[in-house]
């Protein structure tokens, strides 16, 4: 944040905001530009082409290709928040924006209408990538975290305002999902299939459709649209069935951005660009990332649903929480898997207004497995059929999921149990304790989600006319407040965020670093000398780095 601020002018500030509240309203850019619905790339009524990221040709290309593949502009319709003075039905008049009638037809009454990729991909979020030690651990993490996606989305909600209106949702998810929806009418089921191969249920930006670890096999209850030939090719090539189906499902999509030079010249033995092309334009809640060619970065899993919060502390808290959760899952071999159709239902619940306090989510009743995932997997894999899974999950509130219900201890208790068994230095423990306190208070409702805080800011603003309109003055005041909170010059509202004093620093304490290095060196030496008889029982000064500050024999 400081680095960016150093490059900016005095009246400019970097914000970690999920959605800019007046994106698409009048002249919202600086310098100002006019949208070009007739000749522009996106043909949006609201979003000028100049606002599309100029840094790489990819973004303009994606925008154009998505629109042209779809055969029409994308149509994003988000329910508007009905306040006492909001027109009912809420219908906007686009005629003065050079609409040729298609937008008026695409816009739904009582909805906020948006019409290009920029409205979705111009948002921002918090994505966390984990490295796994092998492919099995990667598959396990992918499946186990999948169920957490809707829950973390609801908890981190921070985007209730779109194109200058208060909406009835709290998260960006449905907006982005619709903003890159390149499915044709046939694929969307509006017309019978003639030119297109598949009827596709979801946009390319949406939640995952299948589990890929053995433990998840019995919970794939969504019919997976996939390319059968590709699937067979993968299976014949030695890829296991679940993963083959997952990849074949990703590959029902056409590429929406290609470099001509790469088409012929690429060697698939050394270059994974073609795979990455389709892989990176399937924007899902989780992403399973095989290592690229010629890299030892390993198998990774990306957790993608969380919304960005306005302060660094909050973003760190959410990130650290999910990292700790992965450690807990792997240490205690927990199982959060529920039928994938239920995860999808949870997603639809998650973006509702105030979902974190008002809604319930399907959650596994018993996350503590008796046997190891491997044993379960063998059981699941060997028998053809799957036992009845209906009784394994139930509806729980966010508060119950984090703080416990009955026999279920709650995620926070499990994390605390884990931390008591780890060797954590005092500063880290202090910091993590505060992060977990934030998560705990947001999940119990003691603190408001960021979305609720923003919504209340608008509702209580002196200029607000109870008509769901977030005018420029209101938006300006909101953003000014966010700038001041995030740079520390003002305190946050106590209902939203408490005063924190974390001990984060750029590096771990020197003592830890030295101890770690010493132990590494000693254990390697001891392991190789384990068979040699020990003659000398006197402690050597050089064995103890702390007496003379030497480490690693330097």
């Amino acid at each position: 944040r400081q680095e960016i601020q150093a490059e900016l002018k005095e009246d400019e500030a970097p914000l970690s905001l999920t959605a800019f509240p007046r994106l698409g309203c009048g002249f919202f850019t600086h310098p100002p530009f006019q949208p070009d619905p007739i000749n522009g790339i996106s043909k949006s009524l609201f979003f000028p082409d100049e606002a599309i990221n100029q840094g790489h040709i990819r973004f303009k290309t994606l925008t154009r290709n998505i629109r042209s593949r779809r055969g029409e502009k994308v149509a994003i319709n988000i329910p508007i928040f009905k306040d006492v003075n909001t027109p009912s039905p809420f219908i906007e008049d686009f005629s003065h924006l050079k609409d040729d009638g298609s937008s008026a037809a695409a816009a739904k009454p009582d909805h906020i209408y948006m019409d290009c990729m920029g409205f979705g991909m111009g948002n921002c979020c918090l994505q966390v990538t984990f490295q796994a030690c092998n492919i099995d651990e990667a598959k396990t993490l992918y499946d186990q975290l999948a169920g957490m996606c809707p829950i973390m989305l609801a908890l981190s909600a921070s985007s209730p305002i779109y194109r200058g209106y208060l909406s009835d949702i709290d998260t960006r998810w449905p907006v982005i999902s619709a903003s890159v929806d390149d499915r044709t009418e046939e694929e969307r089921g509006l017309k019978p299939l003639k030119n297109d191969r598949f009827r596709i249920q979801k946009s390319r930006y949406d939640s995952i459709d299948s589990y890929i670890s053995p433990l998840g096999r019995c919970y794939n209850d969504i019919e997976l649209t996939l390319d059968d030939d590709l699937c067979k090719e993968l299976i014949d090539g030695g890829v296991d069935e679940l993963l083959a189906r997952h990849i074949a499902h990703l590959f029902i999509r056409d590429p929406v951005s290609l470099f001509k030079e790469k088409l012929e010249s690429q060697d698939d033995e050394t270059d994974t660009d073609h795979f990455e092309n389709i892989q990176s334009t399937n924007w899902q809640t989780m992403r399973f990332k095989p290592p690229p060619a010629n890299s030892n970065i390993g198998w990774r899993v990306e957790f993608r649903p969380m919304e960005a919060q306005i302060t660094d502390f909050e973003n760190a808290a959410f990130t650290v929480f999910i990292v700790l959760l992965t450690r807990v899952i792997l240490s205690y071999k927990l199982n959060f898997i529920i039928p994938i159709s239920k995860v999808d239902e949870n997603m639809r619940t998650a973006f509702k207004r105030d979902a974190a306090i008002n809604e319930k989510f399907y959650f596994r009743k018993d996350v503590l497995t008796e046997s190891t995932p491997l044993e379960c997997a063998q059981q699941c894999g060997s028998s053809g059929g799957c036992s009845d899974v209906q009784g394994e999950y139930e509806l729980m509130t966010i508060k119950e999921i984090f703080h416990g219900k009955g026999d279920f201890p709650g995620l926070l208790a499990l994390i605390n149990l884990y931390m008591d068994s780890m060797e954590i230095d005092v500063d880290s423990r202090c910091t993590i304790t505060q992060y977990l306190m934030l998560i705990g208070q947001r999940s119990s409702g003691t603190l408001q989600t960021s979305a609720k805080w923003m919504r209340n800011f608008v509702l209580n603003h002196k200029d607000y006319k109870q008509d769901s309109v977030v005018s420029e003055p209101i938006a300006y005041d909101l953003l000014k407040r966010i700038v001041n909170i995030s740079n520390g010059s003002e305190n946050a509202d106590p209902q939203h965020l408490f005063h924190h004093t974390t001990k984060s620093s750029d590096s771990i304490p020197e003592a830890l670093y030295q101890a770690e290095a010493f132990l590494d060196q000693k254990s390697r030496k001891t392991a190789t000398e384990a068979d040699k008889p020990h003659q000398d029982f006197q402690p050597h000064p050089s064995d103890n780095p702390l007496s003379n500050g030497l480490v690693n024999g330097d």
Partner: protein
Amino acid sequence: MEDEDLFDDTFASELPLSSVGGKSQDNTTKFSKVNLSALESLTLPRCTGCQRQFPFPVNLPENHAVISLEESQAVDRTRMAPPPQGTRSGTVKSWNGSVFAAGVKSTRSGQVGSTASNKSNLSVNNHSSSTMTDDIPMFPKAKSMFLHSGNIINWNRLKRKPNQTSTEEVCDCIGNTLASYLETQDKTELQYVTEIYKVNSENVQKIDDTEREEVKITVKVFVCLPLPTSVISETVNKVLNELGTSYIETLLLAVSPGEGEEDDSSAPSVSVIKPYWEAMEELVAAETVLSLGVCDLTKDSLEDLYNWAKVKPSVDQVNLESCCVMPQDLTAYAKAVNVQLLTHNDRPVFIPEETLQETIRSVSTEADGRNWVPQWVVRYSGIVKCRGIIKMKGYIIHARRDHKIILP
């Protein structure tokens, strides 16, 4: 002489049966070293419930059924012989005296024919449904116990109660391990056991050589009362054996608070620590332990220890409740001498006596729980380096009781 002390320890070890330390009618003499033949010559009835013999008819405690000598002798013979197959089935589930009674009852009915109820005023069932206070102890002679929990990371039960303190966690292990031990022991032999030793072997997880380099093992020894310094090597060796390794990375010492001259009763005294520390230094010299640490020391105590020690402490593990309000002098000093300040969540008195006794009581009987005092507790944990995953965690507990067994 104590009236109620019908079972005298000194006799018990001599006899294959429950002993008869009686008083003669004039209350001045005691029998000594009564053998079986001498026993048979006495007209002593036996309670069908707890199988004690009493001088008849004097001093018969309530709820004890009375049987005739013939039946009593028949029972004796039965108890001497190994029980027939099948008579012990169904006895393992409950932990009060009724188990014992049920076992014996089925034995008796198989061997003798008539039941006690014909002759007695009170039936066996009456006795077995009496309160736990009256249940006869399962291991009255036991004076020492060693319990190894094995790797508890995958114990479902413990994960269900993650709000529990580490004290509750270790007591859970004690209860489980002891219960598991009692389940598998011969009830008769249990009466004579002087040392309970149970390793939950099905949970014990050894580290194989390929894994060893990836794992960092830390052992924390809680010394509950003043013990000889050999406790250090004893406990470490137990862990090494259980895990199947020749060395551990870190050994932490926690001594019980309030011993010695410290004003702050919650901080341990350095003079108490030093003898143990010397024993720990020997382990470092032998390379069975790679680094040492101490717990809950203030800056002055830490400095004292640090300056004196040959092998310097690399860790001072402090209670996490102070992690955001660490004393400045301690953090500054630790930084200066490169001592890691790590956190723990353990009570100063790790297992209070009453808690231990309550735990033992909950899986056995009131009498069995009495007088036990924790000697030391070891917690070991193995963390996969660089990945932050807990591979194993377990407890080894040693408790003793040295008092005479007092029965109701």
